[in-house]
């Protein structure tokens, strides 16, 4: 890709320095909307741009903002920087290398939502990063880019970072709100959605770091420019995190609609050691596993196309799996992860992930009977459609899809007593 929208630091040296960022026109977008545009006008621009949430769900960002309960204040904006999905490491690069564009995005969102306070909720492991963000926020305050009566207007904005305590579930927006309020990080029952009753019961916008980082260029260059990138329904660029059996793991910013093949083989250098690709996890642990068929490799990576081949794009963190890896082992690791991370609030996820892990341990320990693979599949199916938040759903989909698509890899581990006897 010729030009980065999000990973602009790769094109511009020293962009993580405020002076450089300002020199390149930074905070011009924020200043211009505060001076010249109403919050509603900003929401309309973002709606028109087609920007969709990069946290995984792909919900249209401007539409989400427009659900804020009218006339209820204070409101809050939260940047979801609890980047915890296995294989996802894009927000970290953005915040480390292009922090001011992200912070300006937070400011634009806060203005559109008419919030005077914004929180950046970082995963606990981002301790050093959040310290750095605190310093950056301080710099912005010193420069009059945050604080009271900005740019001579009546609009004031304060920003704070907040560290989680090490829980994957706190990336789920309502669990994040609970955690931010100082409570145990467990998702809330919805409705009400955060836009109606969020932080401290007030209308709240929660957006992913990458989503927010898209805002300054959208304001600067217009909705039409933005929607001209990508596909019709998935506009703009996406930062794809690629890991696993891959020659050049890393983040790649490409337009939506790029194919798996192009990303894996052209940009990321293909599979090392001449091995063949076997499968792709397109969204870290949180989407059904895809066999790397020709059809799948030629699938365009946008929110709609990946669903059509039986998975979802999620946060676009590709874990590439080659022929040397046993898929049952992959799913065991994923199940182990979900069992460790389930918050325990709802029964199917709490007890279902535990049960699946229990069966996996028997399978991987070569102690399982053939029918236990069916049991595993059945336990996964039983979770689906019943859990309180998406975590349970993802945990189940990972397993059921793998059993359905890679059954022989599971069969390798089971002992059939009847055949032994023969």
């Amino acid at each position, binding site marked *: 890709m010729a030009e980065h929208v999000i990973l602009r630091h790769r094109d511009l040296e020293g962009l993580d320095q405020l002076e450089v960022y300002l020199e390149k026109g930074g905070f011009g977008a924020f200043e211009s909307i505060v001076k010249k545009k109403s919050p509603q006008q900003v929401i309309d621009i973002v709606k028109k741009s087609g920007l969709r949430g990069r946290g995984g769900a792909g919900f249209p960002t401007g539409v989400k903002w427009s659900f804020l309960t009218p006339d209820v204040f204070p409101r809050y904006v939260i940047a979801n920087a609890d980047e915890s999905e296995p294989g996802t490491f894009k927000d970290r690069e953005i915040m480390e290398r292009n922090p001011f564009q992200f912070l300006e995005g937070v400011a634009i969102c806060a203005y559109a939502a008419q919030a005077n306070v914004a929180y950046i909720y970082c995963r606990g492991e981002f301790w050093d990063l959040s310290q750095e963000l605190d310093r950056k926020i301080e710099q912005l305050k010193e420069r009059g880019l945050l604080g009271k009566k900005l740019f001579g207007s009546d609009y004031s904005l304060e920003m704070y970072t907040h560290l989680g305590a090490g829980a994957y579930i706190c990336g789920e927006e309502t669990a994040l709100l609970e955690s931010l309020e100082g409570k*145990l990080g467990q998702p809330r029952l919805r409705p009400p959605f955060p836009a109606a009753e969020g932080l401290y019961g007030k209308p709240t916008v929660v957006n992913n770091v990458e989503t927010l980082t898209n805002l300054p260029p959208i304001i600067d260059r217009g909705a039409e420019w933005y929607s001209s990138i990508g596909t019709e329904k998935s506009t703009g660029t996406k930062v794809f995190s690629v890991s696993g059996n891959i020659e050049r793991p890393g983040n790649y910013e490409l337009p939506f609609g790029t194919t798996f093949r192009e990303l894996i083989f052209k940009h990321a250098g293909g599979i090392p050691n001449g091995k063949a690709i076997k499968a792709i996890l397109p969204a870290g642990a949180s989407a059904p596993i895809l066999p790397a068929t020709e059809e799948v490799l030629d699938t365009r990576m946008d929110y709609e196309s990946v669903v059509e081949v039986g998975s979802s794009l999620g946060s676009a963190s590709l874990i590439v799996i080659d022929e040397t890896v046993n898929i049952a082992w992959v799913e065991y690791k994923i199940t182990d992860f979900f069992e*460790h991370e389930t918050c*325990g609030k709802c*029964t199917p996820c*709490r007890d279902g992930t*535990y*049960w699946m892990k229990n069966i996996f341990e028997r399978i991987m320990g070569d102690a399982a009977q053939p029918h236990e693979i069916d049991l595993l599949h059945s336990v996964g199916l039983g979770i689906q459609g019943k859990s309180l938040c998406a975590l349970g759903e993802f945990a189940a989909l990972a397993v059921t899809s793998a059993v359905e698509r890679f059954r022989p890899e599971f069969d390798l581990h089971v002992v059939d007593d009847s055949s032994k006897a023969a």
Partner: protein
Amino acid sequence: MSVTLTIDGTSVTVPEGTLIVNAAKRMGIDVPVFCYHPKMEPVGMCRVCLVEIGRPARDRATREVLLDDSGNPVIQFGPNLELACATPVGEGWQVRVASEKAIQGRNQIVEYLLTSHPLDCPICDKGGECPLQNLTMGHGPGESRFLYDDKIHFAKHVPLGELIYLDRERCIQCARCTRFQDEVVDDPVIGFYERGRRLEIITYSDPGFDSYFSGNTTDICPVGALTTADFRFGARPWELNSAASICPHCPVGCNLTLSTRREARQAGRDVIKRVMPRQNEHVNEIWICDKGRFVHHYAQSPERLTTPLVRVSGTLVKASWEQALTRAAEGLKEGGKHSIGIASGRLTNEDLFNLRVLLGELGGKAILSDAMAGGNLVQRYGVGVGTNLSSLGKGDAALVIASDLHEEAPIWWLRLKQAAERGATLIVANARATRLDDYAQHILRFAPGEAVHTALGLLQVIGGDPELARFEGDRELKTAARAFKRASNATVFFGQEGLNYAGTEALARACALVIEAKGGLGEPNNGLVAVWPRANTQGAWDMGLRPDPGGLNGALEGAKAAYIVASDPAGDGSASLDKLSTLIVQDLFLTATAELADVVLPAQSFVERAGTFTNGERRVQRLYPAVSEPSGSLPDWKIVAEVARRLEVGLEDTAAPLVFERIASEVRDYSELSYDGLAAVEPQWPQVGGADLYFGGTAYANKQGLGVQLAPRRSGRPLKWKAPPRASAAQDLLIVPVTKLYDRGGTLRSSRLLEARIAPLQMTLHPSEIERLGLSEAEEAEIRWDGRVERLKFTPSTDVPPGSALVPRSVGLALLEPTPVTVRRPES
């Protein structure tokens, strides 16, 4: 607005906002629940209430309902099952509870739950009345696909405090207990720790699980995870017999069920195994406080008196009933019109009635030892028939003055707190901060002992008597008074904190006049409620007993014979009894007063006898015998009647219902009442107990009577307010006795469980007072009054206004009313 939908094909119309689970319940369709509880907000955690929901399809553009060829709305069912507990009904919806898909979904949830459950039902206290057990029978898969040997094991029997134990293996993480503590009673002292399968309940408080309502969590726990220290491993539920009762500890009158079992260890006697709430939505809903639940051991204590005693040659010796009754009768005969009866509101109406009639026939008098005035005013200005504190909300007002309801009447505290949360205007007036302040819209502070000034200040605004100008209050008081005046319904709860008898009399009058001036007298949720020191103090007034304005010593002036029932004036220091020629004491225990007696008559406790109590809201309620009496004791009304017979005074002596019939014929307010009427019940919501215990918990369904609320009397002489009694001469400090839920009164002496929670004997005072009195370096303070000298520990609190110090009642310092004292640092 109402909504019509069909559930399993049957049409039902319910109010808008009704949750599907409740709509189904009202039509007799049970959707299983674990985390949902009808007294709490839904959380949708356990996922067992899954149903299919079909909604009328709408045109995307016009939002019009789409119709099929035959003109019926097209119903669309979503791909996923939905929660009956968290989804409010919608017009035209079709809900399927009994569909194959819904049943399969629920069965799966139960199967998941059981993977983490130890299935130790045979040794579990909840076994036999366990929602998980029952729902497993109804919805479980029948056999386990989970390998039993792979279950996780945790150490069981984790004490969350002295009262409640946690079994972590059995916990299904439904959070009913933590939400009850948080949402309902606002003691968020327990919570979840860790996550996933490792989630467990922990306590944050010291002492552990520090809440007056903790026992209720064991009732709503849908498994055997929380059990009480009192009942655990005590009996199997199916072995228990139950009897309805009324809590004898405070004027709320919570409905109880006493669970009993005959035990070989007790020589075949019935033993109280546990005390459970019995549903009365007008009184206690489905809750009781921990005092009501755990303080029953005194009733079956081995220290109970089981035989009459008479004094022979200076010592009390065992005697036959005949000897004792004859001796008592002789003493009273000799006393004649100089006989006095002294009784407390711990007794039933039947006991008090007989005692009052007997003393009246002798020409003497029967007086009440509970030194608080106003029972006659509650008869006139009490709350109207149909009063229900849980119906108070927006537009209503309640004033609580000179009382700490959290300590004195916890369930009233809870219900007024909830009324305030529903939007009622709560006004709390006291000399110090109390736990009800947190929910009050108006907090009125007055100087210690000056409750009457505040009440008259309120009356000045509400009633407008120009003579009251000198009691004009500050802006906050006036705002509160105006809010009270504006309210659609208004109640006043008055207590006795910081007041002597004359003070309570003036306060009761002022409060009655506030009610009168406000208007609405006789209407439900309007009127005067006295926060009495005992369960049946109002009944005592109704039966014709009242305190002597001169106190017990005044009443005893010139008395020759005294018949003291359920009172311990020698123990609490309220009277000297040494000038009597005959002292008859009738009680459960050999009290300090009984030790001085010439005749001691052993009475029955509330668990052994029938009777009625009249609560602070003037609801007359029945208690039933739960266990056979310890051989030797008799009900108070019976003993009194036996004494009366020997004095040729005719009293009902065969059965409590017959005494009550006589009450109905002689006490005008009770003329419409009968035992049958008091036993009447009607359906209540939510449904609890029996087959509904998964829904509402193990509180017992009320089959034995909701009681009858008395209407306030409509007549009476015009009432005039009284000026506050003059304050006692100033000394160093005014010591104010305050009521604590757990004290060292006679009923707690046998409850070892609560020992650690009993309020310590110490005085609490403002830090500046400690400084001023030069106590800062001392460990104790020496206080002097009326020639008495005591040493007391003390502790600072900024909640106590300067000039006063608080000392708990009945924990060792015999001090009944606010008393000015001198204070100094003791010389070591």
